[in-house]
């Protein structure tokens, strides 16, 4: 990611590597606004090179032992610690099978070397509108576990992201894990258009439950606005099943109803067109299964 900064070095800071949650909370209580949390560092180091961030303390969470856990609880869901990398997630067979929408989103993030460093929680906390994990997590109804001086709380991913580079997290708080409920028998898929850059110009995450005649559908669009957008209209269009007809209708509705913005990457009009394309692609792929 480059916005043309001339810097190749990093601003001065003091580096900390707490070994457990208690130590980490202590550091964040002490330094608060002067500190930045670092997972894989992929985003933070890039931001620091651009001088978009110049923290005086960098707190590395990779060695916090509670954060390294990736836990499946049978029938309940998946808990992803804050230091779990994208590669670790992609190697997880249950994630691939039961949380396909997230697996597909992560498989196309950056490249294998970056994915060995980048963490899912870090990717989410950057809250860059053009990244791919938030729509997939919202489609799966994921929640963010937060710890801080006032104790613990949990927030749905959809409200955790408040805007571009703006999240619901206090200066002394930290995200400890992501919790994803198990959607029994659900099917999911992810599609994006990047135009060759590392960022998406438009993305879509779909999760459809398998039970009953009227299916429960969650459709979330990313990268077209400042925060991901869940579309009840598109969900309604595919609720009776994904067919060539309902897919066509859903694609038209997405293009008409989902609000898009102009920004440095694309115009709103182009994004409207992309919504139609990616909605068609993702639903056709789900139909073919």
């Amino acid at each position, binding site marked *: *990611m*480059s916005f043309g900064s001339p810097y*190749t*070095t*990093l*601003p*001065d*800071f*003091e*580096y900390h590597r707490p070994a457990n949650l208690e130590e980490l909370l202590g550091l964040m209580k002490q330094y608060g606004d002067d500190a930045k949390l670092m997972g*894989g*560092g*992929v985003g933070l*180091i*890039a931001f620091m*090179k651009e001088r978009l961030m110049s923290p005086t303390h*960098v707190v*590395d969470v*990779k060695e916090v032992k509670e954060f390294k856990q990736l836990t499946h609880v049978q029938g309940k869901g998946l808990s992803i610690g804050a230091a779990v990398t994208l590669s670790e997630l992609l190697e997880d067979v249950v994630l691939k099978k039961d949380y396909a929408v997230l697996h597909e989103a992560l498989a196309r993030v*950056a*490249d*294998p*070397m*970056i994915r*060995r*460093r980048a963490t899912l929680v870090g990717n989410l906390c950057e809250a860059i509108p053009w990244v791919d994990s938030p729509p997939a997590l919202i489609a799966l109804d994921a929640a963010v576990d937060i710890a801080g001086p006032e104790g613990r709380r949990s927030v749905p991913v959809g409200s955790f992201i408040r805007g571009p580079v703006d999240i619901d997290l206090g200066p002394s708080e930290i995200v400890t894990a992501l919790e994803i409920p198990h959607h029994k028998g659900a099917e999911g898929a992810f599609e994006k258009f990047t135009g060759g850059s*590392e960022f998406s110009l438009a993305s879509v995450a779909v999760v459809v439950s398998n039970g009953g005649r009227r299916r429960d559908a969650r459709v979330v669009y990313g990268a077209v606005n400042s925060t991901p957008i869940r579309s009840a209209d598109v969900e309604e269009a595919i609720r009776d099943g994904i067919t060539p007809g309902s897919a066509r209708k859903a694609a038209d509705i997405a293009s008409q109803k989902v609000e898009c913005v102009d920004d440095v990457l694309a115009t709103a009009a182009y994004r409207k067109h992309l919504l139609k394309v990616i909605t068609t692609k993702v639903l056709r792929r789900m139909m073919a299964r």
Partner: protein
Amino acid sequence: MREISVKVNGRIRKRNIKDNELLLDFLREKLEVRSVKAACWRGECGLCTVMVDGSLVKSCLVLAVEADGREVKTVEGITDDGELAPIQKAFVNHGAAQCGFCTPAWVLATHELLKVNPHPTDADLVEATSGLVCRCGTYNQIREAVAEVSRAGTHGQTKASLARA
């Protein structure tokens, strides 16, 4: 300043560093390992790729202090007792270098790919090296070099293992 100790290509190296120093700068400037190239500084070109504790990473996105107590391998670390590794010989055979600037990263990355996947498909190769660029466009020759080692099955053969056999 703090002192870190990093095992680089089998040798323990100790140096004083600042907390904000990149692993890339530590290797190039402090240890003079110049095969690790500094080009984009943004994690995009992959030419600063090294192994840290057995895992390929881009050293412009890693702090030097993070490597304290760990093991780093660069392209110099893959030669076998002074002799070129099979993938290095294959790069020579197929002219898989034009200007040569990106070659150390490509050699290291393809060497490691062959280690975990001795017979990679074209798709495996493209995926594994999707974080690397070659502005001269030697991709075809690199593919041929990897295919040669895959066909010959010589990857991982060392003088010692051949002597045993």
